[in-house]
């Protein structure tokens, strides 16, 4: 968060409230913005994030849908092409499996296939994150799938400040933007300026400066990385936590510069490691900072299993502070 924001000019919001504020502000600013999804109006979504929006904007702009993810996502693409700016709400990130043709074959490609003639200014708002005891089909973090596709943008804020600024930018962006919120972070609190602001898409943020090792982390893994950084501090290791904030466009420069400074890197994401976000960013670091590295880049993602239901099993499948701490200490003891 910028140093220039004074204590008087900010208040504490949860990540959920920050997202809601961003949506409300943009809907006041631009009458073509609307939001559509399951249980978004009266219920304000099962996560209660959107409570109150249908009261202010009415059910013609906060619209409950049948359980037809493919149908209303495709509708969102067509609406975005023809003068409105939809926010399509997909309750659980696992349900993106139902909308892949609409996002990958349609939304991502309309602008290119038409030679730049048609645009798709839509936001696809969805979730990631396990440890909610929701089992395998309600707990996945599939952001790598969308980051893989040219034509899509992928945003993953980790704080209320980032969430609000990035949601506003996402709504104003003329491209399809997938906006990921971690289900476990809706009540996470943080300072948010009272003045209006936006955060550009494609700019990383150093959440904690350090000198000995770089930990690149996304979404709720930023908190995991910061927790590990505190543990590392006690072990006399200074960790720098870099939050990309957006997977695509990716701020490669900030990540590479950090690793050039520290010479060691770990990448933490809640998606599966193989062919995932951690693998991509590890490759970016290896290409961009190879001669500065004192050891291999370590990836830490979800265990390669469907997320199990039992609490004793589930918590073991997601990256933990201990895991990050152990990996960092191992890397630092090499040199």
């Amino acid at each position, binding site marked *: 968060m910028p140093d220039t924001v004074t204590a008087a000019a900010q208040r504490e919001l949860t990540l959920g409230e920050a997202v809601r504020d961003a949506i409300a502000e943009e809907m006041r600013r631009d009458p073509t913005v609307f939001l559509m999804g399951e249980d978004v109006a009266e219920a304000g979504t099962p996560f209660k994030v959107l409570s109150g929006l249908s009261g202010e904007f009415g059910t*013609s702009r906060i619209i409950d849908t049948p359980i037809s993810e*493919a149908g209303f996502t495709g509708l969102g693409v*067509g609406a975005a092409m023809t003068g409105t700016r939809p926010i399509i709400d997909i309750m659980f990130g696992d349900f993106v499996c139902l909308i892949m043709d609409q996002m990958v074959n*349609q939304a991502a490609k309309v602008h290119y296939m038409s030679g730049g003639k048609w645009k798709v200014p839509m936001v696809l708002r969805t979730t990631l994150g396990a440890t909610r005891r929701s089992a395998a089909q309600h707990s996945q973090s599939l952001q790598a799938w969308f980051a893989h596709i040219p034509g899509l943008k992928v945003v993953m804020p980790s704080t209320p400040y980032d969430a609000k600024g990035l949601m506003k930018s996402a709504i104003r962006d003329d491209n399809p933007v997938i906006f990921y919120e971690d289900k476990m972070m809706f009540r996470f609190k943080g300072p948010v300026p009272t003045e209006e602001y936006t955060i550009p898409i494609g700019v990383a943020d150093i959440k904690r400066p350090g000198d000995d090792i770089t930990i690149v982390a996304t979404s709720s893994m930023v908190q995991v990385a910061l927790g590990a950084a505190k543990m590392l501090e006690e072990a006399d290791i200074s960790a720098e936590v870099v939050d990309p904030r957006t997977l695509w466009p990716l701020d490669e420069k900030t990540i590479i510069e950090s690793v050039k400074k520290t010479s060691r890197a770990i990448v933490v994401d809640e998606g599966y490691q193989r062919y995932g976000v951690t693998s991509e960013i590890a490759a970016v670091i290896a290409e961009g900072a190879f001669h500065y590295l004192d050891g291999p880049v370590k990836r830490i993602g979800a265990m390669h299993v469907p997320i199990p239901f039992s609490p004793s099993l589930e918590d073991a499948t997601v990256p933990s502070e201990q895991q990050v701490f152990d990996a960092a200490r191992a890397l630092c003891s090499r040199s």
Partner: protein
Amino acid sequence: MTTATQVPTSTSSAAQKWLHAYRQMVAIRLFEEQVNDLYTRAIMPGLAHLYIGEEAVAVGICEALHRDDYITSTHRGHGHCLAKGAAPDRMFAELLGKRAGYCKGKGGSMHIADPDTGNLGANAIVGGSAGLATGAAFSAKQLGNGRVVVCFFGEGALGQGVLYEVMNLASLWKLPVIYVCENNMYNEYTHYSETTAGDILGRPVSFGVPSHSVDGQDVRAVNAKATELVERARKGQGPSFLMCNTYRYRGHHVGDVSREYYRAKTEEQEWMTQRDPIIILTNWLLAEKHADSAQLEKIQNDVRTEIEAAVKFALEAPYPALEEVDEDVYA
């Protein structure tokens, strides 16, 4: 919709209207025959899916629309694009992958799009434009601009679930969209009786979407029904479904030449001789004395000249520069 040729003598508005429709159908027919020629001479890259035989559907429907009404099209979409007002020269250019094409060569046959004529684009995914068309109707209603949308698809798309999802949405929210099913009886190489259970019209009806069926070879019948459904949509009364029974004379795509294994030559001959949309309209025009044979022949010749010039334009047009390959990924 945009024509260069003046239609002589007959001044009644009916005559003008149907002579224009005649011209449009002839233009599609000659355009597609030229496309086939480019393919067989190995000049056109990729494949094309010809609309020959189905002209009355595209023309009958599009003549009921305003320029700023929207359409979505299919892999078999050249007829829709032309009927909605696309220029043959820029279409040929797109099929050849030239920079002067509608999509700067980036889309090709199955993705031709043209905002100037409300063409949201052809789609290579069967049923792929169901959502887009329904969304455009949603926008039109949201913005109150009075536009309507036609979603073209083949009877093969009746197998795609998303089509039913969006009809449910369109019916619930009374969206101004007309779902036009071009039933040419073959899902690629499979007869639709082998793939389509129950009653086709019963499906949209079960969503509360009024459903109609029309002889797709009779451009006046198609246009009359389309006009009624467009007016219904524009008045805010909601979506409708129109099945147009038609036939593609050629193969599924230009390379599908030996097709006796799935389609009898006798059946093809019957449609080509007994149910040709251009012949049907010709007979009516002559019977009603809206034109004589000489006028119709002149129209054909004028169109032929235009098509020849359009092909020449496309053949001579340059390809896009390599530097353009990564332009337009993002707006």
